[in-house]
């Protein structure tokens, strides 16, 4: 589920309030202990002069407390960042902390008014930004966006970020979260297989048709999907709808407009899926197979494309045959009248960072982030985690992973970012659309039945007073 910035999760808010009460008892002794040690090391001045090289006025020899989530990205990149910060600000000791559950570990610190200076707000449970912002506890990161970038004072930080980063961190129109990692979703394929067979990646439906027929003669299925996990196919449906109808079509769906699932963009999407099944381009039996089996089919050259996220290479690392070069392609156009240009990609920045305003050294927190967004540190991140940061071109020229290189190319070339919101808002629709689409690709349904099934659930959700409605405006 995606957490959309303009829909603060009610559950999280309440959970945090409840925990606040519970944690209050424990927090007080910890605060006094921390207060005791901090009074000893404050040597330099708390604030420095704001200059082009020091836009936030970081004080001289100010200690900095930074808390990272220790999850899929590991600890290494955080350690590299901390070392770089200490090198730039000699005498400023970085106190680096790691946590597996940010909410549990750091909620009492917010409650006690003694938060760290920079917090990697990611993990299975995160600090819900809504209530914390209302309490005035978070720094508006607009000043970071407008600051000169770490490497080139003439370029602002926000101009070094890939499209969608700012939007993904907005809350009530202001950016409080900087999402640092960039996941790319799309059609994954084996570049090596394409090279040996002389296939080319299709840009439109005609090219896909030609490729699929050619592959069929070579006894390769052009497409497969993670059958028993309909969420993957749900994404394909949305990407196709976006290609056909663009943002307008998706807004109608997100906003539960009447007959949103009867519009042309949906119709052509459903027809294309049905066509793929009818013409035998889909891996046989895929509807009953799981994600590893179908993903392995692509690695083994039994299928050409599978939709997935940029974690694919890591997920399949153990069974990745030598010689396979995984790469990602954006969804191809599906009709001649498509509203969206080829290259649009579904990507979602995640791994948020927040700067608490009541920390001892918030300027240092901002500076630490600015440095992380610099060329050197963002490249370090790509190298160490084999994932993309939100910094443009951070992984350019990196050859450690073909999948990473390809994902960064696709992201850089994207004219627009595909996004939908209803996935996080209305869970029953995700289930229904995924199931109806699976029926289509299993050849058991018709485009009309797909549209009717999706529209029915959309209408039910719209009608259900017990589901809180959200509005998408952009």
């Amino acid at each position, binding site marked *: 589920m995606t957490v959309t910035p303009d829909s603060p999760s*009610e*559950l999280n808010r*309440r*959970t945090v309030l*409840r925990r606040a009460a519970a944690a209050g008892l424990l927090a007080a002794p910890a605060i006094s202990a921390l207060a005791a040690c901090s009074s000893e090391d404050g040597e330099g001045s708390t604030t420095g002069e704001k200059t082009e090289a020091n836009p936030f006025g970081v004080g001289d020899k100010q200690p900095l407390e930074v808390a990272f989530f220790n999850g899929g990205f590991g600890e290494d990149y955080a350690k590299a960042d901390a070392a770089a910060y200490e090198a730039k600000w000699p005498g400023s000791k970085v106190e680096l902390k790691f946590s597996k559950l940010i909410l549990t570990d750091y909620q009492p610190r917010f409650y006690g008014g003694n938060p760290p200076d920079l917090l990697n707000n990611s993990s299975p449970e995160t600090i819900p930004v809504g209530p914390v912002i209302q309490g005035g506890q978070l720094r508006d990161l607009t000043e970071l966006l407008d600051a000169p970038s770490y490497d080139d004072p003439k370029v602002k930080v926000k101009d070094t970020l890939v499209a969608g980063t700012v939007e993904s961190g907005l809350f009530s129109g202001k950016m409080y979260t900087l999402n640092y990692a960039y996941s790319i979703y799309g059609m994954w394929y084996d570049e090596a297989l394409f090279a040996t067979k002389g296939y080319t990646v299709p840009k439109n439906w005609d090219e896909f048709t030609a490729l699929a027929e050619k592959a069929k003669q070579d006894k390769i299925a052009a497409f497969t999907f993670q*059958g*028993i*996990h*309909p*969420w993957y196919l749900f994404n394909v449906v949305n990407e196709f709808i976006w290609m056909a109808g663009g943002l307008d079509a998706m807004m109608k769906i997100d906003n539960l407009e009447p007959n949103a699932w009867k519009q042309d963009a949906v119709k052509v999407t459903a027809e294309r899926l049905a066509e793929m099944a009818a013409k*035998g381009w889909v*891996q*046989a*039996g*895929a*509807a*009953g*197979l*799981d994600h590893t*089996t179908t993903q392995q089919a692509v690695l083994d050259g039994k299928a050409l494309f599978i939709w997935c996220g940029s974690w694919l290479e890591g997920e399949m690392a153990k069974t990745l045959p030598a010689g396979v070069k995984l790469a990602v392609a954006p969804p191809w156009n599906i009709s001649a009248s498509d509203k969206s240009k080829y290259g649009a990609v579904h990507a979602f920045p995640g791994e948020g960072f927040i700067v608490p305003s009541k920390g001892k050294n918030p300027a240092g927190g901002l500076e630490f982030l600015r440095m992380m967004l610099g060329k050197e540190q963002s490249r370090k991140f790509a190298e160490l985690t084999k994932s993309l940061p939100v910094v443009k071109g951070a992984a350019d020229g990196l050859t450690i992973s073909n999948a990473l290189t390809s994902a960064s190319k696709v992201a850089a070339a994207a004219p627009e970012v595909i996004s939908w919101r209803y996935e996080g*808002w*209305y*869970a*029953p629709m995700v*289930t229904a659309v*995924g*199931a*109806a689409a*699976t*029926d289509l690709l*299993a050849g*058991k349904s018709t485009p009309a039945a797909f549209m009717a099934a999706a529209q029915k659930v959309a209408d039910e*959700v719209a009608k*259900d007073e*017990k*589901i*809180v409605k959200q509005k998408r405006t952009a």
Partner: protein
Amino acid sequence: MRNGRAPFIAGFLFAPILLYVVYVLIPYARTAYFSVTDFNGFSPEYGFVGLGNYLELLKDEVYLRAIGHNVVVLTVYPIVTILLALFFAFMLNVGGRGDKAGIRGVRGSSVYKFIFFFPQVLSIAIVAVIWRRVFQSNDGGMINSALMALGLVEEDKPLLFLAESDSVIPAIHLGDFTLDAPVVLICLIGVAIWGGVGFYLVLFSAAMQSIPKDIYEAATLDGASRVQTFFRVTLPLLREHVSVAWIYLGIAALDFYALVIGLTPGAGGGGPNNASEVMSSWMLTSAFRSSRYDGFAFACAMGMSIALLTMLLAGAQFRLTRSRDKLEF
């Protein structure tokens, strides 16, 4: 003496009763209470809504279809399991050839007993892994590969089994209620029977061994065939055990949760397209995967209705099978 015994007994009962109260009675009571509120599972603030959740249950198409699936399971699973277990138990204990003196099972019956009982010792997770492989919908699946080798199934059209939503009977619609029996559900029942026969076989075996051999010998001397012996001697004397098995299986049929979660497609199982949804799996989905703010309370109402149906069933069973005169031997 009396005074000494009461604390002694209470001391022994205290721990189990405490555990029962804390882990069974209180959760039941809480569930019943939440089912008439709009509790969301997280917030301590919630309101009383009366029987609204229960009325909505009657309009929830998926829930009504899930009840239909439970009805199918309830009809097929206990009957087939009991018949198979009875047949096997009979063959293993008294079905041996009559060419020698004495009553015994077929040759190698101890080996068969072990084989039949084996699924019972496997955890449900292992059962799920095994049967996923058996039903896998490509040439890697056991059944599909066998059928493909025999030329009965084309390689590009494997059978979907657990992803097959086609009903084996024509679906019956009554208002919002649907009764259908999708292939995936039949597959699950097959797995359940495979896993259950062994246990009831052992149960019936033990019962049969307690039937005096001379009754069988008398029947054999009178020239009764194996079939006649089974229906005239064995079955009437096993009445009580069959009735117990019936209730156990009935309750298991109203649950069926683990198999649905372990084997069927979709987040939380129940797929494809709700074709294998049973009451318990839909309850879990409603509690944690619905977007209604009171999803948890709604699921509590569902849980109460399942409990009610289970109790009604058990009550009916007890009434129907209330023992007539018990035969002493």
